[in-house]
């Protein structure tokens, strides 16, 4: 029945391996597997331009979120503030290098690398150029993305603020708002980015005359 169809019209579900036909474009915005219900892909129009816009916004917020204090507090006349890099340094000096590394990976390194990789891809594409090494960048993105836990960190910030309130008066810093906004922009950016369409460009580039 399916034999003889062009391989491009076929999709295999990543979660159950079922072969199925790609639905007509604009048929549905979210395409799910007919057997197991996992999301095969989302229809994401203007992926390059929208990803670029969100990535630029996220970069500004990312810098602000890391350069400024998240929260400050005063106990009996002594005050202190903490930023994310400052908290990592403090953990490091408490002989918690592994924890500092894990927190740094999930809140700083992974989100930072995701931003850098996306900008590297979509900035030239926006001006009609294909940057070199697209497969490597897409593969790196795919493996680093699960390690970015900005949304969990944001919830952790809120809980620690409430806990700290029990000890003393706390003052939210600029970076707290920046993290909140970063979370929203990051979510929008992830939804706007469609690696499928970038892979498809490589396919056409290779089968075409040029590179």
């Amino acid at each position, binding site marked *: 029945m399916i034999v003889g169809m062009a391989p491009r019209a076929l999709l295999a579900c990543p*979660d159950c*391996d079922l072969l199925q036909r790609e639905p007509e474009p604009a048929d549905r915005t979210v395409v799910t597997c007919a057997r197991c219900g996992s999301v095969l892909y989302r229809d994401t129009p203007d992926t390059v331009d929208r990803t670029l816009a969100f990535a630029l916004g996220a970069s500004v917020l990312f810098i602000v979120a890391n350069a400024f204090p998240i929260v400050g507090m005063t106990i009996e006349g002594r005050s202190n503030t903490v930023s994310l890099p400052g908290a990592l340094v*403090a*953990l490091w000096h408490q002989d918690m290098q592994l924890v500092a590394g894990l927190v740094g990976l999930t809140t700083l390194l992974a989100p930072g690398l995701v931003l850098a990789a996306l900008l590297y891809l979509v900035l030239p594409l926006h001006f009609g150029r294909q940057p070199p090494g697209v*497969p490597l960048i897409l593969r790196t993105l795919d493996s680093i993305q699960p390690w970015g836990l900005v949304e969990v*960190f944001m919830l952790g910030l809120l*809980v620690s603020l409430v806990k700290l309130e*029990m000890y003393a008066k706390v003052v939210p810093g600029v970076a707290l708002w920046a993290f909140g906004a970063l979370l929203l922009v990051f979510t929008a950016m992830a939804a706007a980015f469609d690696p499928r369409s970038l892979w498809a460009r490589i396919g056409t580039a290779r089968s075409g005359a040029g590179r």
Partner: protein
Amino acid sequence: MSAPALTAARAGLIRCGDCELLSRAPQSGGNLSCPRCGATLHQRKPNSIQRTWALLIAAYILYIPANLLPMMVTTSPQGTANDTIMSGVVYLLSSGSWPLALLVFLASITIPLAKLVSLTFLAWSVQRRSTWQPEHRARIYRMVEIVGRWSMLDVYIVTIMAGLVQMQPLAAIDAGPAAIAFGAVVVLSLLAANSFDPRLIWDPLGDHDD
């Protein structure tokens, strides 16, 4: 739709894990790389079940010190207090913020354990080639992937508190050894979920259909 399900594997095709391109599987059974992106193609993740088991067992072992050792050490002129994850939850509860206590309890105790138990069940059911409720098991796997990341919550809470409250000798909060064990549990169970291949849930189905 009542016909036996045709999978890529049965059709002699391999889906590239990186770029999703379908390629013809090699007849000899040797390795093949993706013609579009160059990634090595595998019909299923290699040694999926063995790797999942190894990571799960390591995570179970570390789950014990993660819960027994202190997560947070508070020093003040009154002395030193050690807080485990559970006593941190109890403290939140006694200070009146039960929604917060519930949140931390879910994220730090329920979710990590539920994730390990779910993956154990999935790995066990796949190993004995069970055909029981594949849709249900697929849903369990998706839940594990979505919910699992939230177990990092307590590590972040300790990070902020230990970074901020460094006002010796008035008050100081340090991260305790449980933070290391707990972080390791989170990483190991993330890797275990990653090495589990959900397609193995569906593979035994065709054997009975045909």
